[in-house]
């Protein structure tokens, strides 16, 4: 039993960081009032950029490239939502669609392979796990402290609740929102980089296979709070690791509860939590999805 729990713990430490980074990142963007359903595409871009650059750069630098590309796509999302007045959901879904096809095109164009990049050197483990694992352990607390305890965090939250008030305070709304979306993209890119440099040793064509949407689920499940989102991400990861280890150790059990049902759990649970809330008791930021237009005030 102890061995089982330890093995489970180990696999969670390896798999969870991607989801934790992405989920915590999404809270930043959404707390600032910008919907981010483009996490999936940002993760994919980060995963590809990290793997591709790890072929020529030392892997730690490649991970930074992954985060940087994620940030750049975050900036694109921010520009579209804030200055071009795009519908935020549209922009996010467009990013997903572009990255899905672009990843495939670049794989074919750069590596002449439809399935994945050549293998790369993984990040050197540190205390038995990728350094990104330990970063993922610390990061939610850091982000929580920044969001809840610093003047910047206060402004960030205010800009998602009542941007007019922030503007009246003499703080410009647009750069603040952009910063949040860029940070969100960087974290999503980092999550993607974790997939291609720590979970696997290459970019595979289906990455991140829906993990970005699960990050959105975790963010909602965690009620738009960094620590909540990280806990939800951890919870989903433990569930998934449990499912995988049961599949190998107790296949009989999976005949009673099919794998597909277990796979649906994170999304179904998020829906249940949402539908149990009272009307008007939503924890979503009040100005979420609403562009700030000073002329409309």
């Amino acid at each position: 039993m102890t061995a089982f729990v330890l093995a489970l713990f180990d696999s969670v430490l390896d798999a969870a960081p991607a989801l934790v980074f992405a989920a915590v990142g999404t809270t930043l963007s959404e707390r600032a009032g910008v919907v981010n359903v483009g996490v999936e595409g940002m993760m994919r871009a980060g995963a590809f950029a990290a793997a591709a650059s790890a072929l020529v750069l030392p892997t730690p630098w490649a991970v930074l490239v992954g985060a940087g590309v994620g940030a750049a796509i975050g900036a694109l999302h921010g520009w579209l939502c804030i200055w071009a007045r795009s519908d935020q959901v549209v922009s996010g879904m467009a990013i997903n669609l572009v990255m899905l096809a672009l990843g495939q095109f670049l794989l074919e164009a750069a590596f002449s392979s439809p399935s994945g990049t050549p293998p790369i050197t993984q990040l050197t483990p540190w205390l038995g796990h990728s350094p990104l694992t330990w970063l993922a352990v610390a990061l939610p607390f850091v982000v929580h402290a920044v969001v809840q305890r610093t003047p910047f965090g206060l402004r960030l939250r205010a800009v998602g609740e009542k941007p007019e008030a922030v503007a009246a305070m003499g703080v410009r709304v647009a750069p603040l929102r952009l910063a949040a979306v860029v940070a969100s993209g960087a974290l999503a890119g980092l999550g993607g980089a974790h997939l291609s440099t720590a979970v696997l040793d290459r970019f595979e064509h289906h990455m991140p296979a829906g993990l970005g949407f699960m990050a959105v689920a975790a963010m909602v499940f965690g009620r738009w709070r960094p620590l909540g989102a990280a806990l939800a991400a951890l919870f989903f990861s433990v569930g998934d690791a449990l499912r995988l280890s049961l599949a190998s150790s107790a296949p009989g059990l999976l005949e009673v509860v099919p794998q597909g049902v277990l796979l649906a759990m994170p999304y179904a649970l998020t829906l249940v939590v949402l539908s149990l809330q009272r009307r008007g008791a939503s924890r979503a930021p009040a100005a979420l999805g609403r562009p700030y237009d000073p002329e409309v005030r």
Partner: protein
Amino acid sequence: MLEATPTPPGRLRRAARELARAALPSVAPILTSLLVCFVAVAALRGGVAVAVDAFLAMTWGAIGDVPRLLEGASVAVLLRPWGESATKAALLTLTGLSVAAAFRVGLFNIGAQGQLMVGALAAAVVGAAVELPAALHGPACLLAAALAGGLYALGPALLKLSRGVHEVISTIMLNWVAVALIENWLVPGPLRAQVGGGNSVAGTAQIHETAELPRLVGEVSRLNAGILLAAGAAVVLWLWLARFVGGYEWRAAGLGPEAARAAGIDVRRTVLRAMLTSGALAGLAGAVLVLGTEQRYPATLGAPYGFDGIAMALIGQGHPLGVLATSTLFGGLRAGGTRMQLFGVHKSFPELIQGLALLLVAARLVWTKLADRWLPAREGGP
């Protein structure tokens, strides 16, 4: 705008200008996207000449191999590509209409993918498990798919109305619930095809021939009735929105629910009806996929047509006929895209063109400003 004595332009010219103004935010992004993607192929796949060849191959793959026809090949070189283009266009049109219908009442249905999956499954089950004469079997499958998709879309609408849950979140969740339950449980598990003789087939049992969508030009081409269904749906939805009181209520509820309520419109009922329609259209897309090409629910549906529907709805500006036109274009490109593989370009390349076009359409303010500069509105104005 102050003009001394404006020469009244002819009605036709004014109408043309209005049409151009309306179409610019769709056409300009598509052209820009094509240009960018052309440059990308030229830069990464060995020069402009290769890119020209690749894009020509895509074009002939979409509209039929005109050069070979001129050289005297049989008409099949046209019909076969038409079949592929029309098949893809039908799917894109139906999912695009699905998203567009929900848009009209102000809901963003990201769940077309999930609704398509449950629709496809319903069609596959009714097509395989029920025995009916051909005149009834196809319609029965379509009805089952539309109902399944519609009911799957009703959940998010009810959650929104009763609990204030944002439909974007709930439909994203339901997409993945559908993937997990259908493709990870039902299709490989209880509904898996039973084949004798130790052969194994992925996916559900094959549907009866009576349930298949009729082919329009025989065995030469896969051209089937799906495109007629899709085009019909586009025309009906257009007429509904433009000419019927019910459609007017949809638009009113979408533009301003409070005002609509004040005008005596039952907004709740309107939203539920629109979402039911939206889900039914996505479900029909699933049925067209199963009854037209796959003949069963395959191990995995592959291309995410439901998400493509978002692109179609937005590039087509939510207008049913705009959706039909956009879907016809991209259906053709995607059918032709398979021909680009000869030039080292993955067959999903048209999806890149489409995604980029959507991204550019999203920057709506850019295009409306351009439209104001190039084709200034003569009258009205805010």
